[in-house]
Each structure stands twice: as C-alpha cells, then as structure tokens.
C-alpha cells in the first residue's frame, strides 16, 4: 500500500506552521526509508518580497528546509498519528548540498529522499530535488528523531 499525505494531513505530522510549512504533499512513503515531497513554488510566497525584489528566485536554504521537513515526516512516520509515541525529526546535519539550477515561481519541486545510513536516533538521507526532469539541487541531511509536543 503506497502511503501519501496531503497538505492538510502533513499538518498533523509537522510541528511547523505558516509561514514555515514548506511542503504541499508527500507521496510514495516507505516509512523510515524513502518518500517524495512536493513543493509548489508560488509568487505569493512572502520570501520573494526580499529574494530578490523584481527577480524572484527560491532560496537554496528554503529547499534544504523543505527537504528536512520531508525527511522528518518519513523518518518518524507511523500509521498511528495520534499515538502517544508520536515523534518529531529535528534537523541534525546538512552535508554537501549543491544547487544546480535556479528555482522560480511556477516550478514544482519534487524532493526525493532516501535513507542512506542510520545509527540510533539519527537517520541520514540522500535528497535529490527535481523540477520536471532536471535536478536542481542535491545533498545529504540527517535528522534526529525525538519526542515532543507537536502543537
């Protein structure tokens, strides 16, 4: 059974709220292992007010955060979303991220995340971000799985 989450369902699993919920969806979820995040880049995103005036370019650091949110949900995924053991993934490391193409309003980012290694509560994912068939960014990041109040 393929697991997928809509934007509304993601809010049940992410502690983030506006304006820092950066995912519009997550599909092909293999809990703890892999998944594909969706991020629609809109000109109405407040980040474009400053990055850059008159020349909107989606910031690389926001792409890393979007990937981290996807990895956090994948790494802590449980079918029992309301359970007492609900966990949160905290961003622990960011390694070798490279940005190869500009991402602009109108693009849809597909964020492919796959577990590379894990030790204890730490999980490192390799992430490839694409727009259409083009790879726009790639790199690795690790999350630390911890417990916390999601509200």
């Amino acid at each position, binding site marked *: 059974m393929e697991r997928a989450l809509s934007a509304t369902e993601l809010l049940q699993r992410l502690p983030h709220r506006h304006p820092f919920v950066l995912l519009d969806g997550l599909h092909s979820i293999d809990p703890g292992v892999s998944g594909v995040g969706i991020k629609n880049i809109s000109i109405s995103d407040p980040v474009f007010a400053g990055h850059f005036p008159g020349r909107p370019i989606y910031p690389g650091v926001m792409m890393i955060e979007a990937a981290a949110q996807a990895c956090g949900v994948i790494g802590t995924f449980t079918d029992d979303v309301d359970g007492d053991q609900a966990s949160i993934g905290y961003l*622990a490391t960011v390694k070798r991220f490279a940005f190869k193409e500009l991402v602009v309003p109108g693009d849809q980012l597909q964020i492919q995340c796959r577990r590379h290694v*894990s030790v*204890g509560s*730490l999980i*490192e994912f390799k992430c490839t971000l694409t727009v259409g068939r083009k790879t726009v960014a790639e790199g690795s990041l690790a999350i630390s799985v911890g417990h916390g109040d999601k509200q």
Partner: protein
Amino acid sequence: MPENTEQYQRAQRRFELNAAVRRSIIGGLDLPVDPDLVDDDQPLFGRGLELDSLDTLEIVSLMEEDFGVYITDEQRFVFGSVNKLVDFAEAAQLADNGA
C-alpha cells in the same frame, strides 16, 4: 619472523587495514590529527578523539564506502576504537567471502 609465513602476512594485512581505517576516519571527519599518532585502542568518543554521536553517521558511511561493510544499530559497540572497527571489518569481510 620470516616474511613468507602466513602468520607474518596476516599481521601485515592487519597492520595495513588498521592504518587504512585510521586514515579513512581522520580524513573523512577532517580531524586535525596525524592518523599515525592515533592509538588503535584509543577511544574514538568522549575523551579519546572527542567524536560525538553525529560522527557515527559519517563513520558508518566511511566504513561502507571504503571497506564495503555496514554497521547496524546492534553493532554499535564497534565504534569504541580503531581496533574494534577493524575486528568488525575483518569478520564481516570473512563472512562475505564465505570463510
């Protein structure tokens, strides 16, 4: 010890593997330490090389990429020292070779 004995060659392979693991860890973690000055029984964490839990992820990656062995959660005891990592790598390689 004569250089052509099996015992000598085994000791030589072990010596070289220890050196390779030291170089891999020191280089991979970009530590400001001469690999030849790291004792093979020196603790890697805490007061030894002062690595932390985030470094374990990198060591797992390095051991897989450089030596073809994967450390699982149950085998975390191998992070204790270079000798423990090499013991593990030798045993895993032997198991893979069906010995």
